[in-house]
């Protein structure tokens, strides 16, 4: 399965990449904003996407809406610092398959991805 990691923090992108190393996921790209992410989605059609919300140029919610239009089968896991419930519900309503609040540690990522990928089998 192809994975795209979208977060404006390079440390966060590399943390996610490191912690998802045990899964059978091919990291086909990383992006630091929604516009860059959409280019990769159009070209490479990732199966799984981790998506931050607060990013420059295009925020994650707008990016999610666009992803659902161009590649609706993508499984999007939102990973954000915005910890209010409404943001989570909004993302799920727009097509995200999962939602995680930062700070996210290795165990949190593992639990969430076990669930996300199991659901996909």
């Amino acid at each position, binding site marked *: 399965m192809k994975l795209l990691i979208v977060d404006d923090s390079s440390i966060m992108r590399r*943390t996610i990449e490191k912690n998802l190393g045990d899964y059978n996921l091919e990291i086909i790209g990383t992006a630091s904003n929604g516009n860059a992410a959409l280019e990769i989605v159009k070209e490479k059609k990732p199966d799984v996407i981790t998506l931050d919300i607060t990013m420059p140029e295009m925020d994650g919610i707008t990016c999610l809406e666009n992803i659902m239009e161009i590649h609706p089968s993508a499984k999007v896991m939102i990973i954000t610092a915005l910890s209010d*419930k409404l943001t989570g519900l909004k993302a799920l309503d727009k097509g995200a398959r999962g939602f995680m609040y930062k700070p996210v540690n290795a165990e949190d990522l593992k639990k969430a991805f076990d669930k996300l990928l199991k659901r996909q089998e």
Partner: protein
Amino acid sequence: MDTKREDFETTCNLFIQALENYFKHLTDVTSEIGVPFIKESETLSLKNFTGLIGISGNRKGFVYISADKSMYADLINIFIGIEEPTTEDILDMAGEISNVIAGSVRANYGNNFNISVPIVFEGMPKQLKFPAEVAVFVIPMKWKGHEAFLVVGLE
């Protein structure tokens, strides 16, 4: 207790919880929180590297974390195993901490507590000053011996 003091304590506690949770959850090492104080001077409390988030919506102001390179380097080493991070990595780490702390507090203030993308800088920028109408308080902290400040200014 007067409203101003009550508001100061409530806000302080929210940021302290977010700060403590960040370090404990990601590193398993508890941070030591010092006694918060209200800042009267117009100058900033700064270490060498700072990540700042602007706040708008139902509250207006900012929050920033400031620490020396060694603290961010220690965190980066824990997260991704890099021993000699670049300056860009250090600034990115400062921005990400401030983002997560401000975002955590949003759970209490609601989705009209808007946070900006991080502004990061090294050293003391000349153009940054506290707005006069904002009450600023400083939460000193230590994590693994590294000193840092979380500074919050909210209308």
